[in-house]
């Protein structure tokens, strides 16, 4: 089916103002939130930028890496004086890891004893340690002391890490999922040991995404479109494996054809979840898997023109996805019985052939199969600004949405109405401050 499109009239799309943040000289791949109004961006140029999410002001430009940045993680901890300190850890292809102080914008420490590129970083707030995953798994404390490390795992290395209960960590190593456990060593107070506990080999292909749903569950997705829900405590499959190319899901697609599908079209690029559902970016599509019902309840098989790279669930039943096609789309998960009422009226002028025809979302919705879930994803808006793949985005709630892209730009999308009233507020504050409100006599 063709890609769902939405016309230029997007009533529910709040983002009517944008700020282009320039600074990067190469693909921007990562955005991480530091606190309520700041975020960091990093990418292939090896530079880390700190931005103010409200004003778009560039706060710091952090230079230190000589090659592209492969992983970034925020690390906030309390120091002796109980003050919250915001750090970010960045790993780069130059085989270094740098810890930056977000307040001063300075490099706190740099580690360069790695044998291979660190591909993922994860912070275990609970234990006040952080892990780096490359060809081996290293455990570090806040002061960047190496606490312990595993032996060399594979050349491919760890592609994803997720924290599990009971001091366990799940690492995606190729097709395998390896569970490690951290235990306090007997010798030193600061010492930790890391032990491989279990190896899970249920996936047919490389595990691309790994997400923890809650204390009891975590989910993995693979390159061929397998999604497995695991029990976080005993690492068993909680639900039968769900394959997005299951013929029951796609009766119109024959199994033979499945084989001819490009693996890219079925790979699980990114996973996110809320308490009820797991949202999977699979190829060009988006799938919603309900944990309770243990099935896919809604899907949009071609949500974008190209692979969906990142997906995020918003609190208000909305879902945002970004894709290689350079667009960001906002979806809303709606119940099916609303469907007839939701038919968007065709624009009056469309009958006269003015402008581009507004292809309404309902066209796609009509083609729902009888065994389709009772929910569906409605396209409520799209954001077009980047000229190249949108790598990632960061949802800042009221402050808006930051997107980063291969066109070297970061765009801050903002609610125009809110910004306008904020500006009015500032205006009157400044007027009062300048004393311009008084009548000059």
């Amino acid at each position, binding site marked *: 089916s063709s890609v769902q499109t939405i016309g230029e009239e*997007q009533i529910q799309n709040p983002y009517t103002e944008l*700020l*282009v943040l320039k600074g990067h000289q190469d693909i921007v791949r990562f955005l991480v939130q530091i606190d309520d109004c700041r975020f960091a961006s990093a990418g292939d140029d090896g530079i880390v930028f700190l931005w103010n999410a409200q004003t778009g002001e560039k706060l710091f430009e952090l230079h230190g890496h000589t090659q592209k940045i492969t992983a970034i993680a925020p690390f906030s901890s309390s120091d002796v004086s109980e003050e919250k300190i915001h750090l970010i850890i960045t790993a780069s292809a130059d085989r270094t890891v740098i810890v930056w102080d977000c307040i001063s914008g300075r490099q706190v420490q740099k580690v360069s004893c790695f044998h291979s590129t660190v591909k993922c970083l994860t912070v275990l707030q609970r234990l006040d340690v952080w892990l780096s995953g490359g060809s081996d798994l290293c455990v570090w404390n806040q002061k960047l002391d190496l606490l312990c490390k595993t032996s060399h795992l594979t050349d491919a290395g760890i592609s994803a890490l997720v924290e599990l209960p009971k001091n366990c960590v799940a690492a995606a190593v190729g097709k395998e999922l390896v569970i490690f456990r951290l235990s306090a060593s007997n010798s030193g107070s600061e010492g930790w040991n890391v032990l491989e506990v279990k190896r899970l080999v249920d996936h047919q292909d490389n595990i691309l995404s790994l997400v923890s749903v809650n204390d009891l569950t975590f989910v993995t997705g693979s390159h061929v479109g397998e999604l497995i829900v695991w029990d976080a405590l005993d690492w068993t499959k909680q639900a039968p494996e769900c394959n997005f190319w299951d013929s029951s899901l796609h009766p119109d697609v024959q199994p033979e054809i499945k084989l001819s599908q490009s693996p890219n079209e079925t790979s699980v690029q990114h996973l996110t979840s809320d308490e009820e559902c797991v949202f999977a970016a699979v190829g060009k599509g988006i799938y919603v898997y309900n944990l309770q019902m243990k099935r896919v309840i809604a899907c949009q098989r071609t949500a974008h023109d190209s692979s969906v790279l990142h997906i995020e669930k918003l609190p208000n039943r909305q879902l945002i996805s970004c894709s290689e096609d350079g667009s960001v789309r906002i979806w809303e998960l709606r119940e099916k019985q609303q469907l007839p009422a939701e038919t968007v009226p065709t624009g009056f002028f469309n009958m006269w052939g003015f*402008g581009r025809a507004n292809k309404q979302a309902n066209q796609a919705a009509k083609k729902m199969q009888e065994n389709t879930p009772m929910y569906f994803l409605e396209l409520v808006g799209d954001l*077009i600004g980047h000229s190249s793949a949108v790598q990632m985005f960061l949802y800042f709630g009221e402050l808006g949405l930051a997107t980063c892209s291969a066109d070297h730009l970061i765009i801050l999308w903002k609610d125009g109405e809110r910004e*306008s009233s904020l500006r009015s507020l500032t205006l*009157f504050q400044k*007027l009062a401050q300048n004393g311009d409100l008084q009548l*000059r006599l």
Partner: protein
Amino acid sequence: MISAPDVVAFTREEELEDDLYREPPLPEEYSVPLFPFAGHGANPWAKVAGSKFTRDFILISEFSEQVGPQPLLTIPDDAKVSGTFDLNYFSLRIMSVDYQASFVGHPPGSAYPKLNFVEDSKVVLGDSKEGAFAYVHHLTLYDLEARGFVRPFCMAYISADEHKIMQQFQELSAEFSKASECLKTGNRKAFANELEKKLKDLDYTRTVLHNETEVQKKANDKGYYTTQAIEKANELASVEKSIIEHQDLLRQIRSYPYRKLKESEFHPYEPEGALDRADPGCDQHPAPSGPAEPGEMHLYTHIPSYTPKLIKAKSTKCFDKKLKTLEELCDVYFFTQTLDQLHHIERTFRGDVCYLLTEQISRALLKQQCVTNFLFEDMSFLDEKPPEKQYRGCQGLDQDAMDGKGLEESLAPKVVISLGSYKSSVECVPIKMEQEMEDSEEPKMSESVTSEPQENLDYLDADIKGSISSGESIEVLGTEKSGLTKSESQASLPVMPSPQAGRSKVGSRRTVSEDSIEVLSTCPSESLIPEDFKASYPSAINEEPYADNDDERGLRFAPRLSPGVADEQDDVLKQESLVQVDAACCIGKESPSFLEPLPELEQKPCEEDGVVRIPPQPSRPAEQGLCGGFPSHDGVPGGLLPYELDPRHLSGSREVSKSSLDECSDSTSYISSAASTCSDRTPSPAHRACQAGDRHRKRAGQNALRFIRQYPFAHPAIYSLLSGRTLVVLGEDETMVKKLVTALSIFVPNCGVYAKPVKHWVTSPLHLVDFQKWKLIGLQRTVSPAGVNVLHALSRYSRYLSILDADSKTLRCPLYRGTVVARLADHRTQIKRGTTYYMHVQSILTQLCSKAFLFTFCHHLHLPISEREPQESVASRRMNFLKLQLGLANEDVKIVQYLAELLKLHYIQEPGQGGNPLLRFDYVPSFLYKI
């Protein structure tokens, strides 16, 4: 000096009227006054006076000691300009009203010739025979070979429009003063050079003579002197005397108080580090100026190596020698600068006086609109430093008028001329001006004077003669007032302590005036000569720099103290009495405090209650003579209008001004029926910087007019621009696209104080960043693969764009159903001219701006009135305001909202940071319009 009375100028209108009423053959009720000068040209406004020249020009003349008054050059240097106008005759006229006190040569009781540091005089002259009115600026240049070392020159701005001269007097005076200063600076430099050469010659001659005498002495052993020897000795003595004289002259010219010119471009050799330089001149002639005028010294030190010549004792006959040309008299550089300045003056004052006035008014008003004016105004136009006296026209309009600097500036003269009634017998026209406060100069001057060592006084007292007029006051000398003696006027000098005493105390002397010379004035900068420079010479007239002259002959200085400064009046009066004593005793020195400016005096503008002034009108009815009697001097008769708009000025000075009005009103019955007829066929802009801008406006206006007539979908296109949606003009032909872009650019609001967000021609694919930066883009359409990318980008970002396809004549943009644009761009408009249409557009845009201003700065429209008020009710109140109060329909709301956002951003933005350009947009459907 002054030739036959010429009163015709002021009775001309009456005569004309008589003619008109006599001539029409039709019964009176059908009669239409015929245009009396139809023969001169179709344009009735071109020239009523029947002048013999086609447009205003500047004439430089000199009073040559050999041939008398002669014209030197005109600006523009075009024979067509002056036409049949008799330049020789007019030179005679203008040179004959030289009020400079040009005393020359040896003053009695002085051993050496004194140089006169003569002040420029400024005169307005009318010549009805030639149909010419002129602002005449006299100045004196030094020439070693000239009689008394001086060469009188004058520069005249000649126009057929008397009102232009009168109303622009201040501006003209300021501009010509600059030119004059420049010329004189160059002349002093050249003169000093000349003197030094002469001194070297003399020195050499003396050596030669001395040697000869010695030789003779040796050869002569008879014990008595031969006639030859005596002759030689006499010659030597005269040479030595000459050397002393010339050294003295050199000292004098160097001691000339160095005045810092306002126009720094006139002084590229500005005095930095000049003192450090070894100055050969200083060594030769010890103790001349010292620290007072390093710049001048510096100027005079660039002397090329010079081989001295032997000088014959006898000087050449007066008529044998060729007098130096003006160019030779000044340094070439300064001469060129002066010519540039004069050309600038010519350009500035070209055109109808209405143009000049409205330009000045609108500029002043726009300056006041500092919150909104950035939107549609050319900022370079506003930033440009206005002509010297500009702020005076609408002083107090300036935002800073209330803070410190502004206060001082608002002390500066406000000028009120009251034109007296001109009957057949000439009455005087009392014209009142207050002296300009030269606050920047005065401290420097006084300092330099007080630091002057005592021994320098003997040459510092070189006569600085005031022109014989009263300092800053413009006076009219009528025939019946002729024959005033010097003593009379001197007696009248300190008669009444005026509250403005601190300002200008002027020793004035009337000379016999039987002509229609109307206005005399001295150069403001020149009148600030410190007392030390003043004449101890008995017949010299002291120019008291800071006191007003108040005499009965039409000069009235109404006490216009604002109540707030009343207590300072005492001080002023004390000062005044001090001044009087000084003046009376003619004491050469005076207390430094006297020289200090008295900035406390606040002058409130003269204003009349509730009288709304109307900018210049061709004729004013007689009963409005009262109003007409007060054309404020810098040419803003409506100049009072701003005060009435400005509530600050409505308080305080009302009564005072009223009294001053009453005072003057009895003499104001002058009716100027043909007042604003202009001397220039070609209406042209007033200001230098606007020349280019004006041409642009004209072209843009014309193109826009063509656009709205040609394209039925002009409205949505203009709406796009006004609402901040980038409009892309797509086309293959660059000139066509650029023309469209130029046409549409007048509708583009500025996003900041920088250049308009208009990009005339782009060939590469557009990107999102471009829409932030540019609101109007000309884009090349090509068939090449690159062109495909261009089109792809267009379709990708179509939601941010309106696209005007110049080739297929289509427009793709959102719908517009408002009313504002319909008024802005009515395709049936009767407007024909580009500039007119441009002004029409400006006026409607200004209306929009004011709406946006109201909307932006209404507190309750954006913030809740009470704490608990929900946002929704604020939003609905906002909408209601836009729709009901501002009367905006549909999409017009969006225009005002967009302008309001721009205003907010502009106001919020900190001066230092540029601020991130943000892009606002709407998710609205676009439609395709076709012709």
